[in-house]
């Protein structure tokens, strides 16, 4: 992304233009107003000029490349037939009538907004969002968008988005309506209603207040508002803190300073409290830096991305998180150096003593030795430590108690005292409210009218919770940006704005506000939910005094403004906020009270026996919110690499015991029902664990993307809630696995799971070695040339051993390179998603993935090693390596892939004839071939008319028969170079960021100019642990394949038990994390 300041300068004026041109509130537009008409849009999508409706499938959706192929044939034959001159197809150029200020056609505008609780900057071209980047200044995103935020692009232009509100007329007739009718009928409905309720997507912003205000305005109780957040961890932590300290909220954690993290079911690298923020902190604090590496010990029942990055991992049973945490607390209590006051210790001891039998039986069952726990306790107390607990993305009946036990452990290790967990500089606000869901399930049937806003309870709550009964008996007004299961129960199914179109805000951390603002004119005739309510209130004669939600927000922000005491006027303030995207006034401060008495509330429910289901949130689709986005379906799970399907993960040894194999279709029979899915034997699971991801198995007919994809594991569960947080339980219930004898192939992208003894692919350094060599540099480019006589002369700007292109006009300014730190990579797959979206990579569907034709330009290889019951997990993102001696280039017969002066290995799509020789020659197999015209409108087995407007106009769309691959985001390089050249300078380090780099939440990917010795990428390339994939060890004179890539990897560092010695030179410099003190 370019410098924010220059791009955001004068942005507020533009926003004004945007707002004044928006549909006026007083007279809702009769027709859908098309986006800005400009010739560049039209260049990319000629149909756009004619077809204004998003759903206009009748217009031929042929994309230009294909048409040109046809024209090529046609013109040749025409020339042979000696007809008169044949001109190329006629295209129209449509300029603006009034061009918005600060708008230059062909130049991107950036808007700061907040999506998915992450501060992002949306890049728009000609009024269309084309990419969602992280807001580098936003403290919680620090430059990385979340996967969900990035994929909003596909939701925005989704072909299955409704373009009109639907109303149920009477019992039988249901039809599209216009908005006027909706407001009228809604007003009538509200006027008649005795009790009106709201089930709203969990938010921390002014939205909560708005709904309360609305309820008050129409004479209802504020308690009729229920916040619904599917990720149970928010409510659990918040409620646990309320129980422990009497304060709700989620403490901020400081993993940067932490030397040791003990995780029990921790999920901060999957779906934690603030995933991007936590991943960033973790990567800074816990990867090898400055000669030290933090330590992370994880106990978990299923293999998570978090557990995969643990230095030491122990397998426990599902639901054992509570007992194991208590066992740790017990061991901590036994040590004299345990922190905490005597009173706190007494309170904690009371709990532990009460649960003694549970602790002992669990320790015995899991064979957790006292030695291990004592050693762990000693370690925890000897250095800056933090205990992170969770339930691996699921909710068990004891979820809140687990968090409570975690708090006890943290009190004892002194995490609060050391300010590794703290409330005194703001705290994370929980988007949900403890107890809301339980309350909703109890009271739901008492309502006449129930608004369901941007959540899909019909799908995300277990059927056994009786949600269907609640939704059936009432007048449901479902306000959704995408069609969902709840709509089918709704009297009013209203299509609302995508987050990219909507106004809103979030107070993510108390005292820290992020603003959400539209980045595009609404594309699908949708409305902001709050606007609908405002208008309906006006219709029923109870206007709230606001023209629209934007003015409501402005009104509320005036309070924020007042509190902050800024000496500029409000307009200036608000414009600045719009430009920046967030505002930190004064971070709220709280004093930590002492740990209270919790023993009487500490009543764990007994564990079930046998194999237990963990229906966890999917790492990509979450609870199903992302299920209709092909990019997320296709990006696949980080650990299983399965796409487009639900799998039943069980331990491979257990699978053998049960007599089931990979891809065997089994019935998972739980107390509430059963579902069928295929087995994936996943190493590292407890024998009793049956881990099934949520998010798939949506109702048929909602979206062509979700149709027929997977099953919903929640159907197996009986209704149960965590009594403290009130969240519906998604794990811990006994299930039975019944063989069906049938097979159903899972579309796993990776077919081979171990590294086949090829350690040179992923070398690891024991910590001691890494520490000893932390200052050593190596020159990966020091490779003897085959033709020494061709080497550059003395005084040449290039290094004497530069093999790049002797005697050829290699650029002396730039040589682009990338460095991927495997120590930091968590396998989350955000790079793949970002790359897919940035580079118009097609999604191809299950059938094609089964064959192995996935198109990702950067794939994340995941290798298991070590024992099956507790494997070591390694990830290796593999983009094109941009080899200087590229095996792919020499073999192309038509020069479709050649070398750029700046070190890029480039692919010329329009020259490619499709021999696929380059892909064969590539030892990394990162080239992707368009076997069909996947393009945007046909997706493998799903003939779906995706909206070509969601394409990045800077990247050519490839038709069939063309090879494609990672370009190191050459479009971004070009943009950056042009900008630099305009200012008469070189590109500075960090100015150009590739899409994967932007997306990487742990900053594992660095991109930059290798010829600049001070660039981060050049420094990374000189790192002692740096290596080139399949290029041997140049320092030992082994050159491997000698492909000499411009992409290098940085090897992982393993704790080898020598971490005590690790604290050598360079340790603790500038507060760098590292194991402190000697080994106990």
């Amino acid at each position, binding site marked *: 992304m370019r410098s924010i300041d220059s791009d955001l300068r004068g942005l507020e004026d533009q926003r004004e233009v945007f707002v004044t041109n928006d549909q006026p509130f007083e007279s809702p537009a009769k027709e859908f107003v098309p986006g800005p008409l400009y010739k560049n849009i039209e260049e990319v999508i000629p149909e756009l000029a004619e077809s204004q409706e998003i759903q206009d499938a009748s217009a031929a959706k042929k994309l230009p490349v294909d048409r040109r192929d046809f024209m090529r044939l046609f013109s040749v034959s025409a*020339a042979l037939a000696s007809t008169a001159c044949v001109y190329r197809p006629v295209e129209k150029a449509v300029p603006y009538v009034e061009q918005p200020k600060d708008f230059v056609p062909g130049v991107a505008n950036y808007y700061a907004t907040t999506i998915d609780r992450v501060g992002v900057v949306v890049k728009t071209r000609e009024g269309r969002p084309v990419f969602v980047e992280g807001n580098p200044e936003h403290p919680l995103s620090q430059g990385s968008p979340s996967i969900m935020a990035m994929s909003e692009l596909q939701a925005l232009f989704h072909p299955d988005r409704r373009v009109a509100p639907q109303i149920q007329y009477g019992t039988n007739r249901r039809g599209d309506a216009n908005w006027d009718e909706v407001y009228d009928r809604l007003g009538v409905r509200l006027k008649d209603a005795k009790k009106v309720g709201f089930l709203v997507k969990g938010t921390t912003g002014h939205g909560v207040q708005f709904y309360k205000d609305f309820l008050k305005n129409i004479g209802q109780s504020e308690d009729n508002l229920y916040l619904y957040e599917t990720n149970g961890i928010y409510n659990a932590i918040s409620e646990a803190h309320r129980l422990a300290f009497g304060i709700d909220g989620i403490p901020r954690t400081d993993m940067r300073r932490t030397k040791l993290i003990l995780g029990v079911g921790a999920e901060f690298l999957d779906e934690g409290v603030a995933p991007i923020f936590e991943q960033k902190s973790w990567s800074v604090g816990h990867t090898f830096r400055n000669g030290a590496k933090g330590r992370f010990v994880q106990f978990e029942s299923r293999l998570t991305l978090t557990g995969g990055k643990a230095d030491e991992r122990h397998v426990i049973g599902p639901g054992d998180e509570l007992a194991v945490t208590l066992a740790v607390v017990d061991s901590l209590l036994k040590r004299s150096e345990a922190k905490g006051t005597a009173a706190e210790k007494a309170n904690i001891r009371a709990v532990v003593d009460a649960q003694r039998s549970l602790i002992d039986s669990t320790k015995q069952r899991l064979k957790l030795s006292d030695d291990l726990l004592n050693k762990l306790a000693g370690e925890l107390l000897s250095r800056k430590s933090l205990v992170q607990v969770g339930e691996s993305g699921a909710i068990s009946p004891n979820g809140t108690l687990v968090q409570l036990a975690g708090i006890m452990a943290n009190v004892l290790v002194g995490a609060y005292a050391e300010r590794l967990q703290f409330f005194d500089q703001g705290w994370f606000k929980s988007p949900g409210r403890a107890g809301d869901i339980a309350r909703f399930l109890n009271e739901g049937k008492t309502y006449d009218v129930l608004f369901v806003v941007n959540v899909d309870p019909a799908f995300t709550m277990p059927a056994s919770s009786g949600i269907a009964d609640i939704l059936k008996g009432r007048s449901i007004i479902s306000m959704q940006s995408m069609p969902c299961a709840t709509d089918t129960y709704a009297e009013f199914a209203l299509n609302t704005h995508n987050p990219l179109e909507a106004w809103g805000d979030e107070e993510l951390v108390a005292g820290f506000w992020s603003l959400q603002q539209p980045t595009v004119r609404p594309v699908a005739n949708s409305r902001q939910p709050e606007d609908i309510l405002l208008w309906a209130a006006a219709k029923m004669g109870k206007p709230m005094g606001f023209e629209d939600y934007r003015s409501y927000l402005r009104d509320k922000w005036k309070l924020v403004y007042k509190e902050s005491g800024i000496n500029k006027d409000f307009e200036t303030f608000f414009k600045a906020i719009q430009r920046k995207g967030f505002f930190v006034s004064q971070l709220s401060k709280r004093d930590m009270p002492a740990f209270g008495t919790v023993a009487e509330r500490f009543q764990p429910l007994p564990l079930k026996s046998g194999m237990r289901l963990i229906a966890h949130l999917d790492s990509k689709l979450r609870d199903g919110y992302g299920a209709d986005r092909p990019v997320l379906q296709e990006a696949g799970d980080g650990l299983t690499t399965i796409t487009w399907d639900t799998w039943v993960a069980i331990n491979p040894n257990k699978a053998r015991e049960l007599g089931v194999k990979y891809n065997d279709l089994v019935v998972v029979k739980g107390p509430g029902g059963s579902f069928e899915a295929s087995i994936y034997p996943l190493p590292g699971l407890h024998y009793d664990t049956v881990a099934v991801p949520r998010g798939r198995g949506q109702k048929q007919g909602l979206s062509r993307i979700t149709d027929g994809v997977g099953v919903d594991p929640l159907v197996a569960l009986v209704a149960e809630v965590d009594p403290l947080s009130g969240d519906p339980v998604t794990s811990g219930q006994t299930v039975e696995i019944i063989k069906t004898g049938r097979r159903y192939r899972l579309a796993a992208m990776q077919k081979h799971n171990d590294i086949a003894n090829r350690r040179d692919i992923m070398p690891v350094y024991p910590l001691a070695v890494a520490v000893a060599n932390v200052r050593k540099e190596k020159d990966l480019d020091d490779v003897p040339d085959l033709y020494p006589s061709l080497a550059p002369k003395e005084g040449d700007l290039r290094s004497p051993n530069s093999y790049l292109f002797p005697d050829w006009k290699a650029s002396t300014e730039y040589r682009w390179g990338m460095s991927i730190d495997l120590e930091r990579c968590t396998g989350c797959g955000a790079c793949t998603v970002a790359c897919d979206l940035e580079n118009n990579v097609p999604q191809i569907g299950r059938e094609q993935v089964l064959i192995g034709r996935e198109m990702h330009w950067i794939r994340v290889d995941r290798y298991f090693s070590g024992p099956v019951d507790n494997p070591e997990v390694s990830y290796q993102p593999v983009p094109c390596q941009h080899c200087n001696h590229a095996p792919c280039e020499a073999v192309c017969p038509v020069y479709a892939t050649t070398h*750029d002066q700046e070190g890029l290995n480039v692919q010329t799509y329009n020259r490619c004839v499709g021999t696929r020789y380059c892909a064969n020659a590539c030892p990394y197999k990162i080239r992707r071939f368009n076997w069909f015209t996947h393009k945007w409108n046909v997706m493998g087995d799903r003939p779906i008319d995706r909206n070509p407007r969601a394409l990045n106009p800077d990247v050519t769309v490839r038709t069939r028969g063309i090879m494609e691959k990672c370009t190191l985001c050459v479009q971004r390089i070009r943009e950056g170079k042009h900008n630099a050249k305009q200012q008469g300078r070189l590109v500075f380090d960090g100015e150009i960021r590739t899409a994967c780099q932007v997306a990487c939440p742990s900053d594992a990917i660095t991109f930059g100019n290798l010829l600049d010795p001070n660039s981060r990428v050049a420094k990374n390339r000189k790192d002692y642990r740096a290596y080139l994939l399949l290029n041997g060890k140049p320092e030992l004179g082994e050159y491997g394949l000698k492909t000499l890539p411009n992409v290098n990897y940085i090897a992982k560092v393993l704790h080898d038990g020598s971490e005590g010695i690790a604290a050598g030179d360079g340790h603790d410099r500038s507060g760098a994390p590292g194991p402190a003190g000697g080994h106990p």
Partner: protein
Amino acid sequence: MATVSKSFSHLARLIMLMALLFQSGCGRGQKFWTNWWTPGDTVDNVGYHPDQPIEFPHNIHVQKLQMNCEYCHSAARRSSSAGIPPLNTCMGCHQYAQTDKEAIQYLNSKWKAKEPVVWTKVHDLPDFVRFTHRPHVQKGVDCSECHGDVSQMTTVSQAKSMQMGWCIECHQANQAPISCVTCHY
């Protein structure tokens, strides 16, 4: 003898066919050897002069009024596309100037209806060509080097072939980058 004359007439027919084919390959904008064999830009489109909604007189604006190209095509220096001026640029002057002309009245009607004028593209590169005006304009390449002498035209007609070989020749001559990724990605 009959056979001889027959073979002669056969030969003559063959020659005529060849000539016909040759001629067809040598039509306007076609070079026999080059254009005959290549797919894609078989015809170089030189002289392409489509009908436009109004006969915009470039010659008057440039010659008589001494307007700079970038006055209207203002994005050229900053963006990949030069940009076609929005209607408000036209109306800036033509709300007052020359309002009696038929073409201006057309513009006025469009302005009132808030409808854009739909022009036909003249210089239309294939979509896989990523030409950007910005570096060319900044480098000082004159507009006319590619677009011909627009000051002599009313509505624009294509002056140069805009085929890849034509681009390459200039790039080679000026030591501009000629790696494929310069234009194709």
